């Protein structure tokens, strides 16, 4: 039996738009960067010690923008505090937990930054004058202890904060996937793999973001030689492993659906081979997944020289950043294009200048980088002594 196109009259256009694509993307950048920053602190990955602070501040820079697309998307943005004041824990609503979880995570991240930088701030405060001095004073929250004991305590506390922060980040990003995955009305979203896919793709985007901007920052400041080869190799392997896993899970989801060939697959296939064929198969899978996966696999081999890694790794990272964006788009928008009537496709064409349009989305992805640059003026990103010590150790 063949059906012709029909969409319920209220569903002609997509409601969860670009803002809902951008929001998990920003959240993912925070999680991925935080993950890289924590690896050396919690798991003792010494080769990542040089990038730890960079990644931590990178995460901090994206943090204030997490809720902006969500609030901008609300029909009544002025009522957004209702989410915190009257959360629905009765039925319970998954979304209601977001406010609490995110606030908790933000507090942990900010506290961690303060503890990691406490000792350095004391030195910086003593060296600076005027506004900067009072800023450091404020960030120090009145502490002035430079003893070895206090520094040890800083490390212990930041390690503890990281250890709690990682599962919190996982929960927050997994939750995002869970919110979509449990909407049984949506054929594309409704899979238990959604939280896993969302969490790991979040890590992929965050790690790729850190790698790209780390190498860019070094290249711009003409300090490429400062990057330890071992750091590059470790980052390559982490990115490759994370992405290979994420990609595999996504493909397993599709493959099992296709093989089972239920009515659900007929509908999803009509979407993937119809309106999403270019953005899904061509862009997300063929170009932005398979190519960087091969490149990263080759780069992970020991035989590849440092010079090649320095060129190919940021390119692969950039492609994966785009891949995750396409994945978010294909999931969030694609799921709604596949209409509830099971008989047709809704449409969505974002405009450049609308409230939730392309320009605002672009700004939301650029402003964190600007903030990151500003933060780098306050938070030193490089631990010069330590880097030099490691370079003598690892540079080949």
């Amino acid at each position, binding site marked *: *039996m*063949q*059906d*012709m196109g*029909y969409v*319920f*009259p*209220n*569903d002609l256009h997509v*409601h*969860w738009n670009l803002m809902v694509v951008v929001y998990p993307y920003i959240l993912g950048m925070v999680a991925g960067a935080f993950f890289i920053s924590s690896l050396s602190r919690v798991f003792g990955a010494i080769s990542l010690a040089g990038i730890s602070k960079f990644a931590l501040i990178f995460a901090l820079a994206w943090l204030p923008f997490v809720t902006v697309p*969500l609030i901008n*998307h*609300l*029909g*009544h*943005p002025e*009522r*957004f505090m*209702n*989410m915190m004041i*009257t*959360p*629905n824990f*009765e*039925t319970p*609503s*998954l*979304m*209601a937990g*977001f406010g609490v979880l995110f606030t908790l995570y933000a507090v942990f991240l900010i506290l961690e930054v303060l503890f990691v930088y406490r000792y350095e701030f004391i030195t910086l405060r003593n060296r600076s004058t005027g506004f900067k001095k009072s800023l450091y004073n404020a960030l120090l929250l009145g502490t002035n202890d430079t003893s070895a004991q206090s520094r040890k305590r800083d490390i212990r506390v930041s390690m503890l904060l990281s250890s709690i922060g990682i599962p919190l980040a996982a929960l927050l990003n997994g939750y995002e996937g869970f*919110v979509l995955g449990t*909407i*049984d*009305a*949506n054929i594309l979203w409704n899979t238990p793999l959604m939280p896993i896919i969302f969490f790991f793709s979040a890590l992929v985007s965050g790690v790729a973001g850190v790698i790209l901007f780390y190498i860019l920052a070094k290249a711009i400041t003409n300090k490429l030689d400062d990057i330890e080869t071992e750091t590059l190799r470790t980052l390559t392997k982490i990115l490759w492993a994370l992405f290979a896993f994420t990609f595999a899970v996504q493909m397993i989801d599709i493959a099992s659906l296709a093989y089972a060939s239920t009515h659900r697959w007929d509908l999803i296939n009509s979407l993937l081979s119809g309106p999403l064929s270019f953005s899904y198969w061509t862009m997300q899978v063929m170009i932005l997944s398979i190519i960087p996966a091969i490149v990263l696999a080759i780069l992970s081999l020991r035989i590849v020289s440092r010079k090649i890694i320095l060129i190919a790794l940021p390119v692969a990272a950039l492609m994966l950043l785009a891949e995750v964006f396409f994945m978010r788009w294909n999931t969030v928008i694609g799921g*709604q294009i596949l*209409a*509830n*009537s*099971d*008989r047709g496709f809704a449409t969505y064409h974002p405009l450049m200048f609308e409230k939730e349009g392309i320009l605002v989305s672009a700004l939301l992805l650029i402003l964190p980088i600007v903030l990151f640059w500003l933060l780098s003026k306050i938070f030193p990103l490089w631990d010069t002594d330590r880097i030099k010590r490691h370079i003598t150790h690892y540079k080949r």
Partner: protein
Amino acid sequence: MRVNQELIDRDRRGFIQSVVTGSVGGSLMLMIPMSSSLGKELSSSSSEAKVNPINLDANYCFMVDVTGCIGCGNCCVADRKENNVPEGQYRTWVERYVIDIYNTVYVDAPDGGEKGYSEPRTDIEATIKEAFFVPKLCNMCEDPSCVQGCPISATFTTPDGFVIVDSDHCVACGYCVMACPYGVRFINEETKVADKCTWCYHRVRKGKLPACVQACPTGARKFGDLNDLESEVSKIYRSAERLEVLKPELGNEPTLYYINSREEVV
């Protein structure tokens, strides 16, 4: 004797008058969509009080007889008028199903069926074997995913089973719009909050029928209390009539029942 003749004459005149008025009015009802005076007509209608106004123990249910719907669109006009629904958005709509001899199903609902289906579809080449109309509205689920997911309980189920929205509290995050598998929710373009069919809760609370039920010329839309054994819905519910709900596999437990529905209806 003369008096009696006068009475008979008057009665005859009255009778003829009633026949003419009734015929013209009835024909117009069937031929053209409801006029803008419908609202007045609804509020002054005498056929209300079919619903006990203050009865929290009632088990309200809505039934749609698919074979009874003629696709006139009166229900949609009445609903828009009653609930100030913005143009282009729908609390209720009527779908037209057409099936050709090759079993291809054609569904459409131009303007939500609000202007009636006076013209046949011209884009179908094969011979048509059957056609029918399916009114859609809130399924008023007993286990509604829209209520479950609302982050701030702005949408909730009343003690008497109506799923409604607190428009003063709703932030319009759109989760309920996503969660409703029936596509009956939307973000109202004017109020900027989630909106949906309420089975005219405000009318039912006053003992009136929902506006669409009141406006339906064929009785295809039925509303009543299942606990009231004398109500039409209760009688149908307890009869051998086959009742179906939409998308039962999703577990939302709708209380909107379809009589004589078809498997093609989603």
